[in-house]
């Protein structure tokens, strides 16, 4: 199974795969923008400002996906000790931090006109802020040592333990009294959202998922090139020690 995943990753990260994903990303984001800003009706209560949902919710879901990939790749690294898994985890963590930050900023832009406040220490907002801090720490720890094996091992442990916060963030609106609205799509009794709005939201999630795949291919290439540059820089020193 790991070999199949590695082959699929290799195919997606080829240069032609990267170009195709780039075009697919632009098309998907364009379609999503038209559906969200033109086709979907304004909300009956919140009006036009509810349209932020079509970027806020996909950003939050993609943050979950990114950290899930970090979790799986970290387990795979500790099991196989293959640096490719560490590279996947590092790439996904960086993109996850981008999506989490985006979800928080978009939430603030939505919260100000609806709640009358940019920020409140609500359970969903607080656990999301903690999530961001965990993965910023993950990226910071990766810079504290030059030993690639030690770095990968420490990062993998944080990548596994840190993922515990993801279900807490998701269920915070169910477990505690929250200002943040509860689940509207994945809930008992089916989605509680108008058809066109649901379509715009799902297309938004699909577009952000394709964007994530594209950013991963780019970030993995950067990781490979940076490792190659570091190897080139080190090789004369290694030769001199012999």
């Amino acid at each position: 199974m790991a070999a199949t995943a590695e082959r699929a990753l290799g195919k997606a990260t080829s240069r032609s795969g990267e170009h195709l994903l780039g075009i697919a990303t632009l098309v998907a984001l364009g379609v999503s923008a038209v559906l969200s800003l033109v086709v979907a009706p304004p909300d009956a209560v919140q009006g036009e400002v509810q349209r932020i949902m079509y970027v806020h919710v996909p950003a939050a879901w993609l943050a979950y996906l990114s950290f899930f990939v970090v979790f799986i790749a970290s387990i795979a690294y500790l099991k196989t000790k293959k640096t490719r898994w560490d590279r996947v985890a590092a790439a996904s963590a960086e993109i996850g931090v981008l999506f989490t930050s985006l979800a928080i900023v978009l939430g603030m832009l939505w919260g100000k006109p609806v709640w009358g406040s940019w920020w409140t220490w609500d359970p969903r907002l607080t656990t999301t802020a903690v999530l961001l801090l965990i993965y910023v720490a993950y990226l910071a720890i990766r810079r504290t040592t030059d030993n690639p094996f030690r770095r990968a091992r420490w990062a993998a442990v944080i990548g596994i333990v840190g993922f515990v916060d993801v279900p807490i963030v998701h269920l915070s609106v169910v477990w505690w009294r929250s200002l943040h609205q509860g689940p509207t799509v994945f809930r008992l009794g089916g989605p509680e959202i108008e058809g066109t709005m649901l379509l715009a939201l799902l297309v938004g999630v699909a577009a952000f998922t394709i964007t994530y795949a594209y950013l991963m291919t780019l970030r993995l290439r950067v990781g490979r090139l940076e490792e190659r540059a570091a190897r080139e820089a080190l090789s004369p020193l290694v030769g001199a020690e012999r």
Partner: protein
Amino acid sequence: MAPNAGYVIAGYLVTALALGGYTLRLFARAKAAKHRAHTIADRRRDG
């Protein structure tokens, strides 16, 4: 303009800037890493 439309415009602008900016930064990092590796390899070959 609809009330609160400024927040929507700001939201979509922030999204475009974040995703576009990060993509451009990745291209720049790839280019810099490739250049660094080539420079070191060339310098070693020459001398």
